[in-house]
């Protein structure tokens, strides 16, 4: 048995249930081992700081994956993720930050049953990442 959001139940302006996640060195190390991006800036605090970052920080794969989780929890099992575009990292999501992933329905296209969702992450530093997703709902 599985639940899914239907296209007909969606209204422009609907907000997705936000997801907050604390960024710790342990989480970054777990993530690097899982997604296999071993760039030092994402798990070596000294190297990250030497490049001008405040600390080791989330990599692109981690951020994209968190947006996918946000969308999946909203869509349910039958929705399809088509695109994530314009993903722009404006501020580092670094150790010590609690990053909240958010979304809001921006457009719904009746014929294709496609929904455009505005995505962003935020922390005490403000909006850290922005993107747009397109999904298809049953």
């Amino acid at each position: 048995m599985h639940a899914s959001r239907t296209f007909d139940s969606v209204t422009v302006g609907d907000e997705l249930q936000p997801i907050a996640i604390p960024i710790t060195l342990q989480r970054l190390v777990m993530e690097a081992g899982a997604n296999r991006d071993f760039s030092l800036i994402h798990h070596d605090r000294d190297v990250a700081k030497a490049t001008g970052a405040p600390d080791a920080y989330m990599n692109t794969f981690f951020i994209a994956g968190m947006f996918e989780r946000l969308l999946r929890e909203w869509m349910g099992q039958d929705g399809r993720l088509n695109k994530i575009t314009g993903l722009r990292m404006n501020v580092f999501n670094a150790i010590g930050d609690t990053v909240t992933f958010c979304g809001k329905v921006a457009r719904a296209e009746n014929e294709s049953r496609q929904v455009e969702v505005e995505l962003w992450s935020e922390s005490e530093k403000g909006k850290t990442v922005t993107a747009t997703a397109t999904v298809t709902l049953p």
Partner: protein
Amino acid sequence: MSEPVWGKYGSWEEAEQFLGKVIGEDPGVDAVELGSIRRWLEPKEFACTLHTDAAAAKAAGYRDVVAPSTMVFSYGLPAYWSPGDPHAVMGDEPRQIPIPVIFDVPAPCTLSFASNIDMEFFEPMHVGDRITRISRLVDIKHKELRVGKGAFMTQEDTYTNQANAKVAVVLLTIFRFVPPDKSED
């Protein structure tokens, strides 16, 4: 601690010669499988039975468990070490993620960061699939930012499965630069 340096060093003229060309091709080292999916879900606290339970995935129209779409990056990566490769010794350069636009395209830069990404997904990745990534350099835009002078360099990654079906196309833009006090001019 020594200064971190990322990327292949060379001139902008050399970089321009790679525009439109294949700059990297990697058959992913691991097939799509349950263990790597579970470890990927774990740090994200991501619970979804499409990615863990074949019955749930089949009920949603898939033939088996599917990997999350954004996991395609990981399945397109080669091994960091394979049998026959030299063994590491203390003092070796650390292994970095093989991003061709940084490590295979020469540019007069010492640092880099990812700035933009666009992803489009096509065929799902089922357990057992094998993913290959082909990267092309598609754009170079020179720019001076607060962090330094350099260029936004974009690679287009096409991911396919073992049947040569398109799984994803990703545009990855990296800003490669030299910090202000290291600029040559």
